[in-house]
C-alpha cells in the first residue's frame, strides 16, 4: 500500500514537473550572453573619430537574419565592423515573436537582458522603464550628438506610447495602418472610389456582398487576432476620438461605455452579416493577405508594412491591383481623415547594465546610418532621417510614403495602452465577438473585467 502511495505521489510529481518545465524553456538560451568592453568612460567625447573600442554585443530580435529588419540590423553591424570598428563583434539571436515578451521579461527578471533587443512599445516597455532595466536612449542620443537623426514624428509617437518626455527605444519603422482593397473587385461591384465615411464604407460592404464577393477579411486565428481588434479599434476611434483607448486605460472612461460597446457591436454585426466570410477565426494574417491579393476578399485591414508583400512576385493582383484607404470617418470633429493609426513597429531597446561607451559608439553609427540603409536596400522608412532615395521605388512604397506625408494626427492600436492581461482578453474574446458567441456589450464587459482584475 505504501509502495502504491509512493508510486502515485511520484507519478503526480513527475507530471507537475513536466508542466512546470513548459514555462522554463525560454530562459536558458541567453544565459551564455556575454558582453565585454575593455574601455568605458562616462565623459567620453563623441564628436570625434570612433575610438575602436573592443566590444561584443548580443542582439536579440524577432526577425531572422535573412528577413526584414534582421537583414538591416546585421548589415549595419557588419558595415560598422568593416568600415569603422574592426574590434566590434556581435551575436545575433532570433526569438519567435510570440515568445518575445515572455523571454524578455524572464531575462529582465534575471538581469540578463541582451545588449540590444527587440521589444513592444506601449504598455510592455513601460514596465521595463519603471523597473529601470533599459537605457534612456533620448538622453544618450543627446550625449552622443545624434538626436537629430530620429525623426520628430517617430520621437513623438514613441514618447506618447511610453508616456514619457524622452525615448527609451529606437524605432524600426514608421507605419500607418488602414484598409487595403482589391481594385478589380471594387470595380466588379460597381464601386468607383474608396469610401471616405463610415456610412459609405458600410454601403460598399453591402454592394460587394450583393455582387457575390467576400467584402472583408482579417486575421482571426488564435495568436493573430490583432488583425481583428484593429478593425474594432478603427471604428472605436473614429466614433469617440483619437484618445478613446487611452482614456479607458487611464480610467477616464470605461470600456463598457456606450461608444465602445457600439463600436464592438458594429464589427459583430458585420460578422453576423457574413462580411468576413466563413470561419474568420481560422484565418491567419498571411492567409488574409493572400486572399486579398488573389481576389478572394475585397478589403483587408493591415499596416503599411504589408506593402512588402504587395511588392513581391506573389502578388496576383499585380503592381497596381491593390489600393489603400484610411479608416473612414464617422465624426471628423473627433477623428479626421488625416488622422492615421500609426506605430513604429517593434522597437529596439538597450540593456542598462551592459550599456557602455562601446555600445554608445555603435548606437551612434546605427542611428546615423539606418535611415539611408533602409531606404537604399528596402525602400522603407524606419523613423530616421535619410538623404538617399530608393533607386527603384515601387508604386506601393510610394503610396505608403504619400499617405504618411498626409498625416496630421495619429492614434494608436487597440491594445497599445492595455496591460498584458487586458490585451490578451481583448484578442482572445474578439473571436467570440466574430462568431456571435458574445455581443458588443459582453465583449467590452470581458475587457473591463480583465482591466479591473489586473493589478
Amino acid at each position: 500500500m505504501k509502495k502504491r502511495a509512493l508510486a502515485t505521489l511520484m507519478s503526480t510529481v513527475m507530471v507537475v514537473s513536466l508542466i512546470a518545465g513548459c514555462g522554463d524553456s525560454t530562459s536558458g538560451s541567453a544565459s551564455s550572453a556575454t558582453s565585454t568592453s575593455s574601455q568605458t568612460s562616462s565623459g567620453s567625447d563623441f564628436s570625434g573619430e570612433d575610438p575602436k573600442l573592443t566590444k561584443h554585443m548580443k542582439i536579440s530580435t524577432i526577425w531572422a537574419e535573412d528577413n526584414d529588419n534582421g537583414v538591416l540590423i546585421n548589415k549595419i553591424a557588419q558595415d560598422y565592423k568593416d568600415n569603422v570598428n574592426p574590434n566590434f563583434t556581435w551575436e545575433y539571436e532570433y526569438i519567435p515573436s510570440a515568445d518575445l515578451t515572455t523571454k524578455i521579461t524572464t531575462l529582465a527578471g534575471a538581469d540578463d537582458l541582451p545588449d540590444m533587443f527587440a521589444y513592444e512599445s506601449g504598455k510592455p516597455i513601460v514596465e521595463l522603464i519603471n523597473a529601470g532595466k533599459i537605457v534612456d536612449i533620448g538622453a544618450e542620443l543627446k550625449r552622443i550628438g545624434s538626436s537629430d537623426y530620429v525623426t520628430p514624428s517617430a520621437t513623438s509617437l514613441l514618447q506618447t506610447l511610453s508616456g514619457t518626455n524622452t525615448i527609451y527605444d529606437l524605432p524600426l519603422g514608421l507605419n500607418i495602418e488602414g484598409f487595403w482593397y482589391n481594385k478589380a473587385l471594387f470595380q466588379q461591384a460597381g464601386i468607383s472610389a474608396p469610401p471616405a465615411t463610415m456610412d459609405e464604407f458600410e454601403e460598399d460592404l453591402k454592394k460587394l456582398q450583393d455582387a457575390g464577393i467576400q467584402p472583408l477579411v482579417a486575421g482571426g486565428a488564435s495568436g493573430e487576432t490583432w488583425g481583428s481588434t484593429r478593425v474594432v479599434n478603427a471604428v472605436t476611434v473614429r466614433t469617440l476620438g483619437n484618445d478613446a483607448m487611452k482614456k479607458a486605460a487611464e480610467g477616464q472612461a470605461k470600456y463598457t461605455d456606450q461608444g465602445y460597446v457600439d463600436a464592438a457591436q458594429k464589427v459583430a454585426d458585420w460578422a453576423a452579416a457574413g462580411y468576413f466570410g466563413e470561419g474568420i477565426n481560422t484565418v491567419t494574417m498571411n492567409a488574409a493577405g493572400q486572399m486579398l491579393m488573389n481576389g478572394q476578399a475585397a478589403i483587408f485591414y493591415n499596416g503599411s508594412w504589408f506593402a512588402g508583400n504587395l511588392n513581391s512576385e506573389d502578388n496576383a493582383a499585380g503592381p497596381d491591383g491593390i489600393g489603400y484607404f484610411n479608416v473612414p470617418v464617422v465624426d471628423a470633429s473627433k477623428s479626421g481623415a488625416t488622422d492615421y493609426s500609426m506605430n513604429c513597429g517593434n522597437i529596439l531597446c538597450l540593456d542598462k547594465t551592459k550599456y557602455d561607451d562601446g555600445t554608445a559608439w555603435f548606437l551612434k553609427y546605427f542611428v546615423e546610418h539606418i535611415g539611408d540603409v533602409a531606404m537604399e536596400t528596402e525602400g522603407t522608412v524606419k523613423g530616421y532621417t535619410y538623404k538617399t532615395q530608393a533607386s527603384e521605388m515601387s508604386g506601393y512604397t510610394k503610396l505608403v510614403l504619400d499617405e504618411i506625408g498626409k498625416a496630421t494626427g495619429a492614434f494608436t492600436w487597440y491594445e497599445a495602452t492595455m496591460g498584458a492581461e487586458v490585451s490578451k482578453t481583448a484578442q482572445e474574446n474578439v473571436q467570440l465577438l466574430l462568431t456571435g458567441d458574445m455581443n458588443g456589450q459582453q465583449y467590452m464587459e470581458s475587457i473591463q473585467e480583465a482591466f479591473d482584475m489586473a493589478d
Partner: protein
Amino acid sequence: MRKVLGNKQAIALFVLPAFILYTIVVIAPIVISFYYSFFSGTPGLKWEFVGMKNFLRLFGDSRFLDALIVNLRYIGFVMIGQVGLGLCMALLFRFWLKRFKNLIRTLMFFPVVLPTVAVGQLFAKIYEIQPNYGLLNSLLANIGLRHLVHAWIGEVDTALGSLIVMDIWAAIGFHAVILYGAILDISDDVIEAAAIDGAGSFQLFRHILAPLLRPMIITCLIFSFSGTVKMFESAKALTGGGPGNATKSLSMYMYDVAFNYNKVGYGSVIALFIFLMCIAGSTVIGLFDRKEDL
C-alpha cells in the same frame, strides 16, 4: 550481494546521487512554486509578498474555472477514446485482421512518432474552411452534406471536439500496440476453452479478456491521464486555446498568467492546483488497481 545491500553506506551511495538529482529537478521546483504562491509580480521586476491573496483569487477567477472545465472534459473524452479505441484496435489485430497485419499496425502507430506541432498543422489543414476548404469540408461538400461544412476549430461548439479527435488519433496506435502485446500474452488455450464452453464474442471479452487485460488497461489509463492532464502543446498547435477560451487548459492558463501576465505567484497557485488534480486523478485510477487485488 546480501552483504552489500545490508550496508547502509552502500545503499546511500546507490540512492543518494539519484535522490539529489530528483530533488533538484523535481521536488525543489515544487517547493519553490509553493513559496512563490505567496508573492505577486515577477521575481526581479516587481515582487511583493501578498499572503493568501493569490489563493483567494482562485475562487473568484472565472477564467480559471473555464480552463478547469475544458481540462476535465478533455481528460475524460481523450482517455476513453485513446484507451477504448486502442483496445478495439488491439482486438481487431488479434481476432479479425488476417492480412496486412504488420502494415496496418505500422500505419496505426505512425502518428505516435509525428511531432505534435506537425500533427496540429496537419489537422488545421484538414479542418480548414478559409481560404479553401480542407479535406473534411471538401468531403462533406462533395457528398451532398454542404450544410455540415463548418469552421471546425473556429467555433466554440466544435473546437474542443476537433482537438479531442486529433489527440485520440495521434495516440491510439500507442495504446493499441501495448494492449495487443498484452492480448498476445493470453494463452490460446484459455481462449479456445472459453469458445468450447460456448462463450460468444462479448462473453469472451467480458469474462476472459477484460480481467486478464486489466493491469495493462490501467497502465494505459495512467499513460493517457499523464498525457492529458498537462494538455498544452496539441491545443497550442491546433487552436491556440481559442476560439476565446474554448480550448484553453489549466496549464495553458497557468502559462499565460505566469509568463504573459507576469504574475508568477498566481501562476504558481494554479500549478499547485494542477498538482492536486494529479493526485486526485492518480488516486481514482488507483482504485481500479485496488479492486484487482481483492
